[in-house]
């Protein structure tokens, strides 16, 4: 592949990423939009958002560094009580401080 300009590979890769990502965004919607779902399927779709969210942050539940795990647990506790902005700020501050002092 020596004759292909490296920039073209970069552009190709980026274009490929963009296309694939956009497809993931629209296909789910398009496929389900004109279907009526059974009660069972509806329940499943209602649970889906929480499943996706918690799966994305799953690694934080099994963080190896004690500082990371502790900061995350603090964040989880705070999230049940405080609104968005204070929670995010406390999360960042506690992570920063705990990493500083626990390593």
């Amino acid at each position: 592949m020596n004759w292909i300009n490296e920039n073209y590979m970069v552009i190709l890769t980026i274009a490929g990423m963009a296309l694939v990502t956009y497809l993931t965004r629209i296909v789910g919607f398009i496929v389900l939009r004109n279907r009526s779902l059974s009660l069972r399927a509806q329940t499943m779709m209602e649970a889906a958002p929480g499943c996706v969210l918690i799966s994305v942050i799953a690694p934080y539940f099994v963080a190896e560094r004690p500082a990371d795990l502790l900061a995350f647990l603090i964040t989880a506790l705070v999230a049940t009580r405080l609104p968005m902005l204070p929670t995010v700020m406390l999360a960042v501050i506690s992570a920063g401080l705990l990493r500083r002092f626990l390593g």
Partner: protein
Amino acid sequence: MDSKANSETDSKLMSETDSEAGSPVPVKANTKAEFWRGIKASVPIVLGALPCGLVLGAQAAQKGMLPWQVVCMTGLNFAGGSEFAAIELWSSPPHALLVVAITLLINSRHLFMGAALVPYLGHLPKRRILPALFLMCDESWAMGYADARKHSDHGMRRAFSMPYYLGLSASMYVVWSSSAGLGAVIGAYVGDINAYGFDMALPALFLVLIAGMWKGVRAALPWLVSLLAGSLSCVLVPGAWYVMVGTLAGLIAAWFLAPKGGRS
């Protein structure tokens, strides 16, 4: 159709706040106000996204990407998780097929996210939805969805606020691509931003959203399954499989736990 005439009628219909609920219910006002509400709501997310974007840009620069390429990637893709993974796999020249495949895997959760919006947006014509879906990332989807849930819980029709969602997404979009571009330029000076704890902003956001969706233990059981499966997968299998494994496990659990019934 969300034409101007309709939104004015809507604001007349929904001008009373639900004072009995105790906490102020966000009332669906006009389009411009909703757009600004979205931008305001994006602030906590953007505070976390900015340093993450800088880090992404810096890492991309280290792997040989030029700033304009970083802006293109983040501007056309707008999905941070897959971008971090792509950068990790990046070489000179990049292995296009591999990177695209990983992007597909990591972003496959968008399929479920798009599907979840059907009850709220299915009535709108494709030409309004498909462009809006371009900006659907974890955060904008989660916040738009949570906002719609809150409105529909209070009995509001057409609960999803498109201008709110667009304000939210547009703000994030601008910050994300520009911070990534900036990070690529000032890369060497960014240093270890994670030491300051900024990466904890995303889990914080997600945890608040999950807490907001709580509807009792039984409804949350699939989430527990997702958590267990995802964590296990994360520990046992390297790479981003845990997202899909966790999601699918939770969906299967939800299927089995669901009450059986007829079609709606």
